[in-house]
């Protein structure tokens, strides 16, 4: 047995190293490039020189509009996460506590809709948004993002809410609350960690979304970071990798930090959301 155990230890060790390298190397490569004066620093003849000029350019340049993209992304993601969590909470409360017809049908409806490909929506969504005159505004993204993140939020919140004993609801009703009052004053506070995790996940999903943003926005007044970085081409044919990676770094470091800090919560939320299906 010990020989097997030794092999296992070796394999696990190698696997752990592999996993670390796998997950971290592109990320570090991005940071290294952002801080390097020369993009081709891997070439033996090029030295690695640290510079913050790329980051500086990206944050201050008037033509790249990176801060505008960042602002748009944050605003849109916050707004859609907020609305999505609120909407999903209402529905999750109803699903876990109230009797209404067609409940199973509704859950299947949500599940089915969550599997629709984005490309099958975006064409007509563009038509709708043009009709409303909303192309290239922030709300043109918030509404679709809410709808897009709702199924995930619903699954996760249903699993959190169903763990709160219904006696608490009854106590609240006896104490004079309306159903909505029970949700607001009792369920929300008690489920606060779960609600927070859901919001976090919704924020990240909205933040990272690409196709809707690509089609529904046209310039920096509403464009989000993923689109900004994707379209970042540089002016003279030479791709400004330094700046691109700088923008990428500035974008991803906060998100990664948040993900790492709340990793337990996020993982729990993700697995609840996925395994539920």
């Amino acid at each position, binding site marked *: 047995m010990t020989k097997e155990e030794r092999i296992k230890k070796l394999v696990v060790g190698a696997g752990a190293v592999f996993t670390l390298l796998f997950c971290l190397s592109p990320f570090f490569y991005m940071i290294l490039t952002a801080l390097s004066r020369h993009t081709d620093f891997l070439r033996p003849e090029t030295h690695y020189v640290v510079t913050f000029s790329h980051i500086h350019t990206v944050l201050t340049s008037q033509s790249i509009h990176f801060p505008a993209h960042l602002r748009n992304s944050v605003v849109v993601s916050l707004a859609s996460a907020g609305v999505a969590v609120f909407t999903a909470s209402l529905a999750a409360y109803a699903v876990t506590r109230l009797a209404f017809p067609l409940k199973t049908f509704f859950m299947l409806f949500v599940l089915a809709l969550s599997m629709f490909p984005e490309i099958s929506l975006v064409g007509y969504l563009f038509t709708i948004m043009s009709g409303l005159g909303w192309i290239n505004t922030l709300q043109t993204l918030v509404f679709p993002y809410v709808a897009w993140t709702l199924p995930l939020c619903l699954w996760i919140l249903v699993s959190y809410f169903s763990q709160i*004993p219904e*006696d*608490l609801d*009854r*106590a609240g*009703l*006896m*104490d*004079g*609350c*309306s159903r909505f*009052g029970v949700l607001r*004053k*009792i369920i929300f*506070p*008690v489920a*606060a960690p779960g609600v927070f995790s859901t919001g976090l996940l919704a924020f990240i999903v909205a933040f990272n979304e690409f196709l809707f943003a690509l089609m529904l926005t046209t310039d920096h007044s509403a464009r989000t970071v993923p689109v900004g970085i994707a379209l970042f081409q540089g002016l003279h044919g030479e791709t400004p990798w330094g700046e691109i990676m700088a923008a990428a770094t500035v974008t991803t470091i906060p998100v990664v930090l948040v993900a790492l800090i709340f990793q337990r919560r996020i993982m729990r939320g993700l697995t609840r959301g996925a395994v539920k299906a």
Partner: protein
Amino acid sequence: MNITFDSCAKRFVTRKGEFEAIRGIDLEVEEGEFLVILGPSGCGKSTLLNLAAGLEKLSRGEIRFGGEVMDSPEKRLFVPARDRNVAMVFQSYALYPHLNVFRNISFPLEVARKDKAKRSKTVIEVAGLLNISGILEHKPGELSGGQRQRVAIARALVRKPRAFLLDEPLSNLDVQLRVETRTELKRLQRKLSITTLYVTHDQTEAMTLGDRIALLKDGMLVQLGTPRQMYDAPGTPFAASFIGSPPMNLFPAAVRRAAIASGGTTLGLPPERAKVLERMRKERVLVGIRPEHLAVRREGERGLLEGVVKVVEPLGREDLLRVDTAFGELAALSSEGRFEADQKVWLSIEAQRIHFFELESSSWS
């Protein structure tokens, strides 16, 4: 405030079909009365309480508080829980885990938008009444079971409700605490004179706490009476065996003139009991006698029932003896404490305490 249940019925629709939890109950709870709703699991007692609370809706019938209709499907009237001004204590206490004791108790007042000073005053008053003034800062998670229960009661009383509904509030406490709290509850209710509906499956609680007991089985009211009445004059074998601990001995016997017989043995009856037996006009009856009304003697005498001790269960201040007799195995209580298994004994029956029931109705009135 009195509570009236008028021909009340409640039907639930589950995945497996329909289920009648309450089948037709008429009950009048008097103002200031402590009424215990007693019954085995599934008899509908919690449902009845929820109906009174407004957490459930009647399928048929009417519920009135002091004459005012709270729930009537026929009249399409339903007053929801939040508007009934009654309070409930749950078996799980259902304290709000995110609030400390003070805020738990003041919660109903906050919902009712009472001003802060008044809220504070009332909460402190009620906390004093229940001896929990010292734990107002704590959160429910930090409290013992007994403390949590008091907080639940305080929260219920803080709005000065017109009725007080309790759903098996003592089941989660350990036995010692249960006895103490029982007494306190009774004292509290007396002091406040508040109409109280108390649900339990524990007949001891029912007997010690209730002004009257409503015994339920399978969604119907089997018997209603004071504890004394329930004990002395159970109307059905079910009531007879449910009330009183240890449970009443119930055994079939053949009817003879002024006597009952089984397995070759005849037991004579005093004239008054004989008359009751005759009036029943049956050949066989179900006989009931409580263990406490069977005295165990070491020596035989005429008129005593012979038997052999099978099991001795010491209960502390007395022993429960299971005695094999011609009428089957009977339970008897003895404080002599000197009996052993396989010992031959003679049982002296308090004849006035013999009950007779019809044999066919094994569980129904």
